[in-house]
C-alpha cells in the first residue's frame, strides 16, 4: 500500500495524478464559525488524522485497513473519536476572553496501545489520551450488572469477573493540562525527539515543558523588550529539530528564522544561526513588513532542511546556509498588486501553513479560492489544484488550475479578480509515508490520494 518513498513521484508529472478520495464536513453554504477547521495533523504512522476547529473540538479519523475484498476502499479515513478539547474561558483579571479555537495539534509517538496528542488554544495546552475499549468486565462481586451495589449479606460466593467483548468505544481523556504559562497567544507547540519534552511558543516567549510535569515550565526564549514601545517583532512559529533534541528554530514577524541550541545556555536569546534573506529595496511598499512575516516554519523529515512560509512565497533553507534560502517558490505572486485590498479585507494577515511530503521531495501549501499548491523540488515543477465539491467524484482526478494574471484569459483560467478570498486553505497535511494529503477548506476536510495507489 505504501508507495515507494511516498510522494516520490513528481507532483505534476504525467505518471502521477492526485485524485479525490473523501470529503468530511457539512455541505451547506452557511458555515458556522465553530466548524471552521483550524489545524490538521497526521500522526507518526499516518493511520490517524486529527483536526481541530474553532469551536474547540478535536475530530480524529482513522484509516481503514486494506481490505482485499474491497480493493477500492484503499484505506479510507473514518471518524474514530470526537471530543471537546477546549472550552471558552474568561480571564477575569484582564477582562479578556480566551478563545477555544484549537491552534495546533501535535501527536506523540506511539508507545503503547493508546494514542496521545497535544492540543492547544491561545493559553492552555492539554495532553489527551485516546484509548480503545472493546472489552467489558462482567461478574463483579460487589455490584450488579447495572452498577447498583449489591447487598453484602446476599453475597455468598466469590467469583472472578470475566472480560466480555463489547462494541468498540474510543475514549479521550485529558491526562495533563499545562496552563498559566503564557501571557500572549500560543502559536506553536512542538514535541521533542526525546519524546519527553515539548515546547510551546507565544508571541514573545517560548517555554519548554516536560510531558509529565504540569506545574512548571522553563522559559527558553524571551524577546519581550523592557519597554513594550520598542517592540519590533514577535515570534510566529517554533519547532524542534526532528532528530537533535537540543536544537529548535523559531521564526519572527520580520521574516527571520533563528536556530537555537539549548546546550549553549539556559536562555536561548542568542541564536546559533540566523536565517534571513535581505529585502529587495526595489519592491518596498506599505505592506513590506506584513508580507515578509513568516507564518509557518517546518523542518524536513531528514532534518537537513527547513521551510518557511510568508504571505506570497515558500522558501526552503539549508540549515548550513544562513545567508539566503536554497529555493524560493512563489505561491501566488499575482496578489502582489492586490495588497491594498487584501489589507482592507484583512486577508493579508492570513497565516498559511506548509508541509513536506514523506521523502522531502515535494512541498505543499494553500492559497485562496480553495486552491493549494504543490512544488516538486526535484523536477522544479509546480501545480495548482482545487479542493471543491465540483471535483468531488470518487477517484476523480484533479485538474490543474491556473490563475490568469493579465491580458487575455484563456479557457479554464480564472482571473485574479474572480478569486474568492473567503475560501482559503490555510491548513494542509501530508501523510508521512504515502501519497495521501489532507486539505482543510473552511469547514470541510478533503482527502486526496494518488492514482497509482
Amino acid at each position, binding site marked *: 500500500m505504501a508507495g515507494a518513498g511516498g510522494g516520490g513521484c513528481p507532483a505534476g508529472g504525467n505518471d502521477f495524478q492526485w485524485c479525490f478520495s473523501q470529503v468530511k464536513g457539512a455541505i451547506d453554504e452557511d458555515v458556522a464559525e465553530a466548524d471552521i477547521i483550524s489545524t490538521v495533523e497526521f500522526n507518526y504512522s499516518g493511520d490517524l488524522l486529527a483536526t481541530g476547529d474553532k469551536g474547540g473540538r478535536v475530530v480524529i479519523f482513522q484509516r481503514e485497513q486494506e481490505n482485499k475484498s474491497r480493493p477500492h476502499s484503499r484505506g479510507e479515513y473514518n471518524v474514530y473519536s470526537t471530543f471537546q478539547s477546549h472550552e471558552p474561558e474568561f480571564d477575569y483579571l484582564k477582562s479578556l476572553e480566551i478563545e477555544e479555537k484549537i491552534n495546533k495539534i501535535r501527536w506523540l509517538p506511539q508507545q503503547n496501545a493508546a494514542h496521545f496528542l497535544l492540543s492547544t488554544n491561545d493559553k492552555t495546552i492539554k495532553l489527551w489520551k485516546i484509548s480503545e475499549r472493546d472489552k467489558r468486565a462482567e461478574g463483579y462481586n460487589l455490584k450488579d450488572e447495572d452498577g447498583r451495589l449489591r447487598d453484602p449479606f446476599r453475597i455468598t460466593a466469590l467469583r472472578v469477573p470475566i472480560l466480555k467483548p463489547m462494541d468498540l468505544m474510543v475514549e479521550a481523556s485529558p491526562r495533563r493540562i499545562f496552563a498559566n504559562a503564557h501571557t500572549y497567544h500560543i502559536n506553536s507547540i512542538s514535541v521533542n525527539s526525546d519524546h519527553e519534552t515539548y515546547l510551546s511558543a507565544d508571541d514573545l516567549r517560548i517555554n519548554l515543558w516536560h510531558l509529565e510535569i504540569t506545574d512548571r515550565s522553563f522559559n527558553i526564549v524571551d524577546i519581550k523588550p523592557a519597554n513594550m*514601545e520598542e517592540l519590533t517583532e514577535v515570534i510566529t512559529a517554533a519547532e524542534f529539530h526532528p532528530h537533535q533534541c537540543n536544537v529548535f528554530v523559531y521564526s519572527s514577524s520580520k521574516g527571520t528564522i533563528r536556530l537555537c541550541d539549548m546546550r549553549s545556555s*539556559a536562555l536561548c536569546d542568542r541564536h546559533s544561526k540566523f536565517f534571513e534573506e535581505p529585502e529587495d529595496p526595489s519592491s518596498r511598499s506599505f505592506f513590506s513588513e506584513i508580507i515578509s512575516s513568516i507564518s509557518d516554519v517546518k523542518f524536513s523529515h531528514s532534518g537537513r532542511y527547513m521551510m518557511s512560509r510568508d504571505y506570497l512565497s515558500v522558501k526552503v533553507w539549508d540549515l548550513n546556509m544562513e545567508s539566503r534560502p536554497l529555493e524560493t517558490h512563489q505561491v501566488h505572486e499575482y496578489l502582489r498588486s492586490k495588497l491594498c485590498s487584501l489589507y482592507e479585507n484583512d486577508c493579508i494577515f492570513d497565516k498559511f501553513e506548509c508541509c513536506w511530503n514523506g521523502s522531502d521531495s515535494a512541498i505543499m501549501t494553500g492559497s485562496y479560492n480553495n486552491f493549494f499548491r504543490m512544488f516538486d523540488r526535484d523536477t522544479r515543477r509546480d501545480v495548482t489544484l482545487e479542493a471543491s465539491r465540483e471535483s468531488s467524484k470518487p477517484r476523480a482526478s484533479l485538474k490543474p488550475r491556473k490563475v490568469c494574471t493579465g491580458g487575455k484569459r484563456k479557457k479554464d483560467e480564472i482571473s485574479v479578480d474572480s478569486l474568492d478570498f473567503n475560501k482559503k486553505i490555510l491548513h494542509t497535511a501530508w501523510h508521512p509515508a504515502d501519497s495521501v494529503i489532507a486539505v482543510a477548506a473552511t469547514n470541510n476536510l478533503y482527502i486526496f490520494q494518488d492514482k497509482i495507489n
Partner: protein
Amino acid sequence: MECALDAQSLISISLRKIHSSRTQRGGIKLHKNLLVSYVLRNARQLYLSERYAELYRRQQQQQQQQPPHHQHQHLAYAAPGMPASAADFGPLQLGGGGDAEAREPAARHQLHQLHQLHQLHLQQQLHQHQHPAPRGCAAAAAGAPAGGAGALSELAGCAALQPPHGAPHRGQPLEPLQPGPAPLPLPLPPPAPAALCPRDPRAPAACSAPSAPPGAAPPAAAASPPASPAPASSPGFYRGAYPAPSDFGVHCSSQTTVLDLDTHVVTTVENGYLHQDCCASAHCPCCGQGAPGPGLASAAGCKRKYYPGQEEEDDDEEDAGELGAEPPGGAPFAPCKRARFEDFCPDSSPDASNISNLISIFGSGFSGLVSRQPDSSEQPPPLNGQLCAKQALASLGAWTRAIVAF
C-alpha cells in the same frame, strides 16, 4: 506596486483596525497590531514627507516675496539643522490644501508652536530615557484600577510608532524606529530626504541626501545615555546553565508563579531572567525602580499638555475628566462625539474626521486607563478629542499613545 489608497485613507483604515481589535474576541492580537502599526508608520511617513515638501515649496515661494529679515525666520524652520522635527511636525499645521495661501501667516505661527512642542517632546523623551522605567511594568503596577489595563501592561506599545528621535538615542539599530525609506520616490528638496532617512543604512537612492545632517537628532542623542533594554549588560543576571536560586544574587527571582484563581492550579515558569515581569509584581524589593508609577504617569500626563493648534478650538468642549473616566475593559466609546467633532473641523474630509475621532478616542481613553492621577490639576482643557486629523498626524504623542493603549 499600485495602490488605490492614498496615505491618509491607509492611516484611517489602519486605525480602524486597531480600534476594532480591542473588541474582538480572544483579546488583542499583538502580532496583527504590530503589523498594522508598520503600515501606519509607512503611510504616515509618506504623508509627512509629502506635506513637508509642500510646505517647503510654499515657503520657497514666500521667501521670494518676503523682505530679507523675514527670510531668516523661515530658514530657521527649513534649515537642515532641524529636519527631523520639521519632518515630524512641520508641514502638518497647514490648513486645508485649498486655502493654503490664506493661511500662510498662520502657518508660520503654527510652525513655531510645533517647534516648541517638538522641543518639549524631546525633553520628555530625554527625561524618560534617563529614568528608564519599563513602561510595561509601570502600567502593570498601575493597572489595578482598570481591568483593561492588565492587558495594557503586557500589550502596551509598539516601537514602530515611537518618534524617530527616540530610537537612535539608544545607540542600537532599531530599524522601525527610524524613518525608513519613503515608499515612493518624491521630488523633495535636499533637506527633506535627510530628515526622513537619517540613519537607515539601506535607504534607497531616492533618499540620498547631499547635505545629510549627521546631527539629525543631535540634542537628544548626545544627552541620553544608551539606555539598553537588553539584559546582557545588566549586572546581577546569571546566564549560565540551569540557574540555581542562589546564583541570582541581587535579583529576586528566576521564576514566575501563577495561581489560577479558577482552578487553583499553580504553574511556575523558570526563566533565565525575568526583570520586567518581576518588576511588574510591583513589590520587587531588589529592583531599584520600585513602582515607577507616579513618575511615568506624570510623564504620560505631561505629554498630553501641549497640543498644537489648541487656540483653534472653540471653547465649548466637554469636560475632559468625563472621558478620562472611561470604564475599564474598553467599553465602546460614545458615537456622539463624532458629531461634535465634525462641527469643529468643517474643512476636513470624512476620512480625516474618522482619523481624528479615533485619535481622540485613543487619546482620552488611554489617559484614563494608564495614568493613575485623577485628571485634576493636569487636566488639559481642550483636549477631549477635538482634534483635526492633520493635527493628530502632527502630534507623535497621539500615535505612541494609540498603540501603547494596547
